[in-house]
């Protein structure tokens, strides 16, 4: 009896634990639907037609692909210089035949130094791309043999060497069978028979191979005359790199072995030491060049390697482009320079940027985020079909004509914020139009079309404006007036860039720039505008203004000077010479400012506060301000003093204090002198103001921008900055949040049997301490399930009640018996940790079972049927329990321990 029952259980256990069941969706067609268009689904309550779905889907791919290509190209170009630098380094080294270091031909160093290139990649986790680029570049030369080492497959010297050899020789040495030949073989084999193939980690292989290689190449082309190499190296060092030159001399140059250590930090230091000393030992025979990728700093390099091995390296440093620059360029390329393309709204952009600045300086993750938003834009927005094409194009007409009524209704809702704004703005002026917009689809259609066109033009203008803004920034030295592209763009999304304090500041300051510079600036603006004809068309009025300003400049320049010359001669002789030059003005302004100090302080304080706040988030350089030149017509334009004060305050904070004060008279005099110039300056200034005001607007001002801009950030947050801990916890603790079923409540105190098994196990788990006795767990679990099962057969015969009691008793039985179990678990065989847990259960279970039987047999009347019931329940519970805990194990909540055989260790935070 006992025996076979246990057997049954084992069988049951086996089948249940080993099989796993996947339930395919029954309806085949449905199933197909999901995968179609990568799950792009019909929107607008499924009224959207296949055609539109496809449109969105295809658009998504089109857009994303060209963004992707843009970025890839960009990255490539950005790293080009660094790559070439490294390439030249490699090709310049060891070119002369015999001695190790070509530069030190004049003097022999006692150390055999290995030429080593340290590549500082910055800590961005996406430097792989650049490395690939470098390697491929190096490999363009046939005589360069590269071995790329990654920490993850260089566990010990042995297989590191193996990898090196294999990669350099571009063969893989077949793994000679290290496995132990069985005893008889062992004794029979006479030693000579053994294959005397060199172990595949034997540096001698490399040696032999290289000798052979050189021999061959010697035959092919007789060796280079050192002279040739001489000037070659020269050229190289002058970083001139035209490939054909390289390739030509490379064909003559000797073979080189390049070891590329990708992630220095992760390598075992001792291993590297040995590697270095080994190869420096071979440096006569093997021309080795090391390239080491370092994420951190030279300091770390020195930290980790002892100087004994450092002295074997002849280091040169290379800096890869840091991710900040990359991101700037990407933003420029993807967002600013594109006209009819996907755009990010402020929220998602900010999110991505913050992630980049604060959490990971990773360009890749930025790109990932971007991709996601593109995808989601087209996935969720039925109107996205209107985005990213030239609204004036015929293509657009087609789409527009195809638009359904539903689309337009959707449009009203979807573009609600901007639409409403728009309505409000016009309802006073033209209520009729408003009415039509809301009622007549035709009108709406047109207005949408118009809106899109406006956006289109806005983008064109914005591009120009932005470039000019950058130009303007370039004019100033002080870091205070410089903001990175990414920061500027953020501003431009938040508000009209023109209104931003920063830009206002810049414009203000433009007043005090000397003629020639400002003139050049204006010219560049002109150039920028005329660069593409659209912009030219849109901004021609500015062009005209510009032109006559420039004209004026010509004239004014001359006579303006005349005047000043004379006045200077008459009035103030000592400082005359410099009058026109900036410094003078500088002083003047500063002094004037000094007067205002007293009443500016209050303002200054306020300014300071928020400026510092923003500074903290922006990069920090901006903090240190050096204002040699703080200027503006402070006294004469009281209404504009705010910004002056900002400057002033900065200047004060740096404690730039001017020495000499001036009398009111002289001040007035200079004022006169300057007036002529001023009118000019004003004109320019007005122009600049107008120009930027017109170009640097914010996308929010335009109706229907939602069609083009992706403004949703929550989805991004959800999918990119997950909070696994809390999520898993809620999932397991309050499954109804996800299943939204009403069977169980959020009540923490009671564990309902209606919960999913894993949840029950988890809830119990939360109650346990560090070590969990599996059997207790099992019992508790069982109890919970049991009353569920019982509930199910509530309305059966009273006999069942008896069973229930029995089960209760058994439960106690179990509970009691447990202790004994613990004491005498000598018979528990420890198996490997995986199925250990189950085993323990099983064993305990079997004993348990034994008890049952006795117990039962002692019981008189109720027979077979019940027992089957019993067994069935027991089996089922056990199976479900095992599944539950193995799931938890899989999640990493528990782990079997050797300390106590029938216990598991709790791996996560306590109950939280």
């Amino acid at each position, binding site marked *: 009896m006992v025996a076979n029952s246990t057997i049954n259980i084992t069988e049951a256990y086996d089948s249940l634990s080993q099989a796993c069941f996947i339930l395919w969706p029954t309806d085949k067609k449905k199933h197909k639907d999901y995968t179609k268009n990568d799950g792009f689904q019909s929107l607008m309550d499924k009224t959207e037609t296949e055609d539109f779905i496809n449109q969105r889907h295809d658009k998504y791919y089109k857009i994303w692909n060209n963004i992707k290509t843009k970025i890839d190209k960009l990255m490539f170009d950005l790293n080009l210089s660094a790559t070439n630098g490294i390439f030249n380094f490699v090709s310049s080294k060891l070119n002369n035949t015999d001695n190790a270091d070509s*530069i*030190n031909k004049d*003097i*022999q*160093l*006692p*150390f055999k*130094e290995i030429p080593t290139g340290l590549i500082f990649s*910055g*800590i961005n986790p996406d430097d792989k791309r650049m490395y690939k680029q470098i390697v491929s570049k190096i490999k363009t030369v046939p005589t360069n043999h590269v071995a790329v080492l990654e920490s993850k497959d260089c566990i010990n*010297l042995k297989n590191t060497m193996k990898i090196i050899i294999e990669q350099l020789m571009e063969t893989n040495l077949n793994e000679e069978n290290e496995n132990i030949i069985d005893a008889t073989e062992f004794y029979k084999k006479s*030693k000579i028979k*053994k*294959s*005397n*193939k*060199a*172990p595949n*980690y*034997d540096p*001698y292989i490399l*040696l*032999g*191979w290289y*000798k*052979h290689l050189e021999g061959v190449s010697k035959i092919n082309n007789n060796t280079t005359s050192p002279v040739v190499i001489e000037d070659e190296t020269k050229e190289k060092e002058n970083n001139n790199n035209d490939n054909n030159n390289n390739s030509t001399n490379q064909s003559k140059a000797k073979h080189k072995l390049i070891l590329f250590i990708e992630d220095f*930090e*992760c390598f075992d230091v001792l291993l590297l030491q*040995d590697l270095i000393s*080994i190869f420096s*030992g*071979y440096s006569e025979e093997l021309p080795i060049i090391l390239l080491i990728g370092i994420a951190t700093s*030279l*300091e*770390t390099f*020195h930290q980790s390697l002892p100087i004994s091995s450092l*002295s074997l*390296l*002849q*280091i*040169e*440093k290379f800096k890869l482009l*840091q991710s900040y620059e990359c991101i700037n360029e990407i933003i420029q390329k993807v967002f600013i320079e594109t006209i009819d393309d996907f755009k990010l709204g402020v929220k998602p952009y900010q999110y991505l940027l913050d992630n980049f*600045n*604060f*959490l*990971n*300086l990773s360009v890749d993750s930025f790109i990932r985020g971007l991709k996601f938003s593109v995808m989601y834009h087209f996935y969720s927005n039925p109107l996205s079909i209107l985005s990213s094409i030239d609204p004036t194009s015929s293509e657009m007409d087609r789409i527009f004509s195809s638009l359904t009524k539903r689309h337009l209704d959707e449009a009203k809702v979807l573009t609600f914020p901007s639409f409403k704004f728009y309505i409000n703005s016009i309802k006073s002026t033209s209520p009729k139009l408003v009415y039509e917009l809301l009622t007549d689809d035709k009108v709406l259609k047109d207005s949408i079309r118009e809106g899109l066109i406006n956006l289109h033009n806005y983008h064109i203008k914005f591009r120009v404006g932005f470039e000019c803004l950058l130009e303007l920034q370039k004019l100033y030295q002080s870091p205070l007036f410089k903001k990175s592209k990414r920061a500027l763009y953020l501003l431009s999304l938040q508000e009209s860039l023109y209104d931003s304090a920063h830009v206002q500041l810049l414009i203000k300051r433009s007043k005090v720039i000397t003629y020639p510079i400002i003139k050049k600036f204006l010219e560049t603006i002109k150039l920028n505008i005329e660069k593409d004809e659209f912009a030219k068309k849109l901004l021609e009025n500015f062009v005209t203004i510009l032109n006559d300003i420039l004209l004026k400049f010509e004239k004014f320049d001359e006579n303006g000077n005349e005047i000043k010359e004379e006045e200077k001669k008459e009035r103030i002789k000592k400082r005359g010479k410099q009058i026109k030059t900036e410094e003078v003005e500088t002083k003047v302004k500063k002094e004037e400012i000094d007067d205002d100090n007293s009443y500016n302080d209050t303002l200054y304080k306020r300014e300071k506060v928020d400026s510092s706040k923003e500074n903290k988030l922006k990069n*920090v350089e901006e*903090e240190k301000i050096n204002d040699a030149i703080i200027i503006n017509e402070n006294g004469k334009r009281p209404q504009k003093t705010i910004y002056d004060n900002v400057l002033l305050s900065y200047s004060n904070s740096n404690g730039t204090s001017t020495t000499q004060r001036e009398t009111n008279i002289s001040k007035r005099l200079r004022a006169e002198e300057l007036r002529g110039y001023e009118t000019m300056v004003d004109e320019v200034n007005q122009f600049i103001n107008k120009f930027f005001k017109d170009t640097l607007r914010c996308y929010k001002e335009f109706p229907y921008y939602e069609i083009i801009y992706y403004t949703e950030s929550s989805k991004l947050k959800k999918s990119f*900055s*997950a*909070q*696994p*801990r809390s999520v898993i916890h809620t999932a397991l603790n309050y499954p109804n949040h996800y299943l939204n079923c009403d069977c169980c409540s959020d009540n923490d105190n009671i564990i309902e049997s209606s919960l999913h098994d894993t949840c029950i196990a988890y809830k119990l788990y939360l109650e346990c301490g560090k070590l969990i006795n599996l059997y207790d767990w099992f019992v508790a679990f069982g109890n919970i399930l049991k009353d569920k099962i019982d509930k199910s057969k509530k309305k059966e015969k009273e006999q069942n009640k008896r069973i229930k009691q029995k089960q209760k008793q058994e439960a106690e039985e179990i509970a009691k018996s447990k202790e004994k179990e613990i004491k005498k678990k000598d018979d528990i065989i420890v198996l490997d940790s995986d199925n250990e847990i189950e085993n323990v259960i099983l064993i305990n279970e079997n004993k348990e079972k034994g008890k049952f039987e006795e117990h039962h047999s002692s019981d008189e009347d109720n027979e077979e049927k019940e027992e089957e019931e019993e067994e069935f329940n027991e089996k089922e519970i056990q199976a479900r329990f095992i599944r539950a805990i193995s799931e938890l194990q899989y999640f*990493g909540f528990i782990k079997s321990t050797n300390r106590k055989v029938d216990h598991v*260790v709790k*791996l*996560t935070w*306590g109950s939280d």
Partner: protein
Amino acid sequence: MEIQNEIDEQFEILRKNYPGRELQITRLQDLIGDIHQVVPPSIFIFGDSATGKTSIVRSIFSKYKENASFINCIDCYTPRLLFEHCLNKLSGYIPNPDNLYSNYAHCETISEFIHFLTEICDKNKNEDEELTGRYLIFDNAERLRETNPLLLSALLRVPEITNLNITIILISNIVWEKFRSQTGMLEPILLQFPSYSKSEILNIMIRDCPKDENKNFYYIFIELLYDVFNKPCRNLNELRHMAMLLYPKYIEPIQEGKATRNDTVKLFKHIEIYFKQALDKLYLRNISSSEWKNKSFEEYVEPTVNSDIRFELPYYTKFLLIASYLASYNPPRYDLRFFSKSSENKRRKSRKQEDVSGSKKSQQLYGPKVFPMERMLAIFYSIIDDPIEGTIDINRQIASLKTLKLLIKVGNTDVLNQMKCKCNVNYEFIQYLSKSVHFDISRYLYEAV
């Protein structure tokens, strides 16, 4: 016999080329100079680094043809490599494409090794039964101890067991006492290469004098150099290294016609600054020989300190690192005082008792302490101003700090909330970091450094 002659010549040459090593060379000649003599079972050559051990022995045995195998124990990092390389050398066997990169034999154990050894010796035993010595030289012998403790004593037994005319020569820069293992270590004959005296060093360095240069003039230079550098380091190679790189600078004024060879004072003045730099940078390899050469005078003068240590980190990551530094260097019991937002004034006080009494060592000297992750995070959240929730990104950053070895995980527990770490960055770097984020680290440190 002709080998013998070559060998004798070689010894003569060496005596000339290695001033200050005549004695050692002669003794070596006595012991192993005669290839047809009974060889001593084992010799242990020791002495400080850069005392000519390796180079002398190497060049001696370069003449012994296939009777000697010179093995560097660093690149024979497994016994198998050791044995097979030995055999290759003795049998003049070289793996190459033609023999499919095979060694003389497949040999993993010392017993196999002995068989092959005898095999080789018997094979090319010269007919007239006249015995010839075989020499196994192991450079960096200290490495032999690592692989397995018996290997060394086994090797030393080889002559006795095989009863061949073999000698084992060990070269190492550590003393023999450190080799003695428990079982059956035969005592080798000790042969010390003592460190060079000043005069010897100068005699050697003078040999680097450029041909076109007046010996005395050069001598003045190297003597000066020696006097400057011998205090921190007497390693001959280092000194030569310096001399090589500094000499061009030394004679610069002469080439530019600013000075003549005679006005030494002027030259000294000129070279002084370079010496200073050399000690700071060159000697420590902060700038490599090649970089050193392509540098202008200004660059030598300007102090390029911090450029070495700085690199960009994400904003929060910086704080994570700072937090872990604080966690590593502050005693936990002070956390409340430092990081509870309330007690501003207390902080002030705590900084008073920085200075520790001379007798007990300051905690700073003991380096970073281990801290549990939770504590570090707590500090992190308290020192960072804007509230952020613990997203996966934070964990990811911690992980990447670990991969960058800026944090070091201590012990290997899987229990997530029990992970313990150490901060692996020095104060200088932390200072730079905290400056970059406007965080006044000194206010939070228990002991100001």
